[in-house]
């Protein structure tokens, strides 16, 4: 118990308390009908995005690897869970309709019916091999973790092994997500091309339960996952392992000369964050209801970086705050509920100008407040960067300069 109230754990406890209060508040509000089902879904989705942002913060804010492809893992996780949801749901419908046919359906007829139902839209009638495990929830849940994990492992191993770093790695990860998106856009990729998977909000076997209950369950699950992952990541970054990855961020060569396997650490972080992101995606898409290859567009991953940058990287709570604030503001502004600003000669309609505001805010944050919103908490807590008499905090090009760190 004594270790828990150490100052370095204080931020985690505050965060968990806030999250618990928030969850309880939303639950009560939903019970009394103060917030709509769709808003509960939006909040649940936002928590999943926060989860992804946590992973992004770990790999970028702590390990200094700017991955522009993590939303690919997010979407892959969504696809994996979506396959089971769609398969099981279609199976229910097909069995019900075949039962009206007079004879009990054979297994061949059922699988043929499911295949026709799912793939009629892309002009195919056979179930592709990638759907081989779709009938089983445990197997598909395993794939949620395994597919993005293996992809990250192979990609990361190739990239780190040949010492691809910095902007090269960023562009390479961007190429990875673009390649994956283009692949999934094809109709013969086996995942319904640009139609994607849909109807994911209907949980098989739970027709009797209303969407208002289901959305609340998913909200709780998202909040719980966020809390657990936060605690786990906090344990990682607060310990010795965290010191090593921060050291890699600041001076990779020096860590290597100290005898650490830099590539091993990087690979571990890359795979771990990929798995966390995929898990977040698997929670996100049943709430969103639909997934298609556009979710893997390179821009999505860049937005993930934007959230973390605005929230404040190198602080776990910063990533959560950034993702929550920016994505909620974004849906508020683009939802058309923000009053327009008349300027006399023109009117600023926020649906059109939100992107501009976001882009410029982002540039300003990068220029003037590299610590993002999290920096405000640092200042409140009286945290100061070490005084290095004007020298950079780290010798690497990517390290913060002292002057910037104090802003």
């Amino acid at each position, binding site marked *: 118990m004594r270790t828990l109230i150490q100052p370095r754990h204080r931020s985690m406890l505050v965060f968990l308390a806030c999250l618990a209060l928030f969850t309880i508040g939303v639950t009560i509000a939903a019970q009394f009908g103060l917030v709509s089902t769709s808003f509960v879904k939006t909040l649940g989705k936002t928590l999943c995005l926060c989860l992804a942002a946590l992973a992004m913060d770990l790999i970028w804010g702590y390990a200094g690897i700017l991955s522009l492809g993590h939303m690919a893992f997010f979407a892959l996780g969504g696809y994996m869970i979506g396959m089971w949801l769609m398969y099981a749901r279609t199976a229910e419908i097909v069995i019900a309709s075949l039962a009206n046919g007079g004879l009990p359906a054979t297994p061949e007829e059922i699988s043929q019916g499911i295949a026709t139902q799912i793939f009629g839209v892309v002009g195919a009638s056979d179930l592709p091999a990638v759907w081989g495990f779709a009938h089983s929830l445990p197997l598909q849940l395993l794939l949620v973790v395994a597919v993005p994990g293996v992809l990250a492992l192979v990609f990361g191993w190739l990239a780190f092994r040949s010492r691809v770093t910095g902007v090269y790695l960023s562009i*390479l990860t961007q190429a990875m997500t673009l390649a994956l998106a283009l692949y999934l856009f094809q109709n013969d990729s086996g995942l319904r091309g640009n139609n994607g998977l849909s109807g994911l909000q209907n949980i098989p076997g739970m027709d009797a339960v209303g969407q208002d209950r289901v959305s609340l369950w998913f909200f709780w699950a998202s909040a719980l996952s966020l809390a657990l992952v936060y605690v786990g990541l906090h344990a990682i970054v607060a310990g010795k392992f965290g010191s090593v990855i921060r050291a890699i961020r600041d001076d990779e060569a020096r860590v290597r000369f100290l005898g650490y396997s830099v590539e091993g650490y990087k690979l571990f972080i890359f795979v771990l964050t990929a798995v966390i992101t995929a898990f977040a995606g698997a929670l996100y898409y049943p709430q969103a209801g639909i997934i298609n290859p556009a979710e893997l567009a390179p821009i999505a991953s*860049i937005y993930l970086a934007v959230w973390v940058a605005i929230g404040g990287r190198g602080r776990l709570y910063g990533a959560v705050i950034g993702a929550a604030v920016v994505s909620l503001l974004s849906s508020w502004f683009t939802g058309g509920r923000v009053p327009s600003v008349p300027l006399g000669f023109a009117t600023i309609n926020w649906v059109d100008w939100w992107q501009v505001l*976001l882009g410029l805010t982002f*540039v300003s944050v990068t220029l003037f407040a590299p610590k993002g919103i999290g920096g405000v908490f640092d200042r409140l807590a009286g945290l100061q960067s070490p005084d290095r008499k004007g020298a950079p905090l780290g010798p690497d090009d990517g390290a913060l300069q002292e002057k910037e760190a104090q802003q």
Partner: protein
Amino acid sequence: MRLFIACFLAVLSVMPLRAETVTEILSANSELVEKASRQTIAPVIDAIAASADPTAATVLAAWAEKGLGLRESDGRFFLISPTEEGFDLTDLTGASAGSAAKTDITQLKPNAGVRGLIATALVQFTLSDHDPAKRQAALASIAQDATAEALAPLRASIAGEQDTVLLARKMRLERLLTLRFDADSAARVSAIEGFGADLGLDLRGALNPILSTTVMAAPKSPSANIARELRVGRDLEPVAAYEILVAAGLAPARLTLDAQRDALKANLTDGMVGGVALADLDNQAARDRAYTVLEQEGKVPVAATDDEAAAALAAYKFFEIYTEADPAVTAAAKAAIDSIGTRVGIMQTADLALDGLSLASIYFLAAIGLAITFGVMGVINMAHGEFITIGAYTGYVVQLYVTDYTASILIALPLAFAVTFACGVAMERLVIRHLYKRPLETLLATFGISIALQQILKNVFGTQARPLTSPAWLDGAWVLNDVVSISYIRIAIFVLALVFLTFFLWLMKRTRLGLEVRAVTQNPTMAASMGINPDRINMLTFGLGSGIAGIAGVAIGLFAKVTSELGTDYIVQSFMTVVVGGVGNIWGTLAGATMIGGLQKVIEFFNPSNTLAAQTYMILFIILFIQFRPRGIIALRGRAAGD
């Protein structure tokens, strides 16, 4: 039967009149002509066409155009033209014959079938028409719709042809018709062989019908022109083979699952069918069992079992039969098609190389600006795509004010450079200058600028595509033969890319600015201590890179849709080009662009229907390529190399 007799009589009555004049033929067959129908009129039309009478063509043409009339009083035919009161009459020989009231004249109105016959008969006259345009049109119509009937008139018209171009076309068409329709097998073979390895689409179009095949089943080799025997299982799927047998009535149809289900349902009594309970029918084996019982009881038709199907397949052989009966002709055609195939393959390779080159020059143009900023300053400019878009929109705005397309493009090119140069310099001064030590943050900050710029462009110009029209002299394509062609716009872009390569080399190697840029690239500190102002150099290089993006935008806008997302389509490819090529070296960028453009076209060639797959595989290849050459094809030491 009556029809047949009428036809027969008509033939008899026309026969003796062969050498006579049109007037005599018409009046001898006036009954037939007046009530002309497709079945009966052919001999009359042929007789007119075959007569030596010089007016035959005029009369036939007039007939088809409802310009032929019959005077009821004396049964004579006239060429008629309608006037207010009635018709002006012209004698068939061309002399005027006064006029007549409408009621006196029966205007002949041939139906579509008869008009078709007349048109065919007229071909020989139009082929010899004194107007070359008409002759050309007649040739085109024969080429489009080749028939055996056209062969004889075409041959007849060759001797009198004066125009050498048309003569060549006639000879070629005559050969094409000969190889398809001539009665003499040797003539057809020699016609086929006479073409050698000609690449024309028309030749391939003429040869392919000769080689068309059908599959038929027979117990032993039939006496037809066999292309090859198909082995069941190797050349032919057993299911497909059995379907051929069923279609030919040589075997009974197999039981489909649907038919089986319906039969079982129909014979359902008291929850049992064929001794199997209804609830147990949830697998195929149980259903088969129940159906067999029903078969034995005689309640359902007997379906072929697997053994019977196999026996039926074994009893028959399957052959691909040429629809063309003459083996000598098909052999010659096959040889010709094969040799053409080889030539076409070579030409396609050439075409592919041209395509790849043109794509490479587009990528080169799009990437060269990025290569400058990335290579010289180590700055990733994510807003590069938006600079390309701005360039294209500049071209669009110029065309709003300057309507002459050639002039507008000539104005747009430097103007786009100026606009994007200014944008680039502004961006460098305001943002990038502060982030030189933090490349990852530069990437993100420029991305912020990119989304802001993109949205501003969308707000200003709307989401729909704006036209950027190329001058008329850039329309069309340079056609080498039926396989190899390249559009003029792509040639122009290739030339533009060459110009930029030259310009860049001159700038870097021959000017003071280039010298200073190279110095700053290699070692900024040392360059500064030599009196070079690195700030100024950075600003100018960034402006230069952005300006070239603007010009690339104008070039790309000429063939792509100008929308606010134009640049985003090229940005990742541009990054790839720079990364693959190697940073800080123009030759590297060139090599990267050539490799990526060429590769993409090659992959597309193997899977032409799927450009998405091509891009996917290309990116995968690049990711793997980076493994082996992490610094690109041409690596450079210095600040840009990051070591």
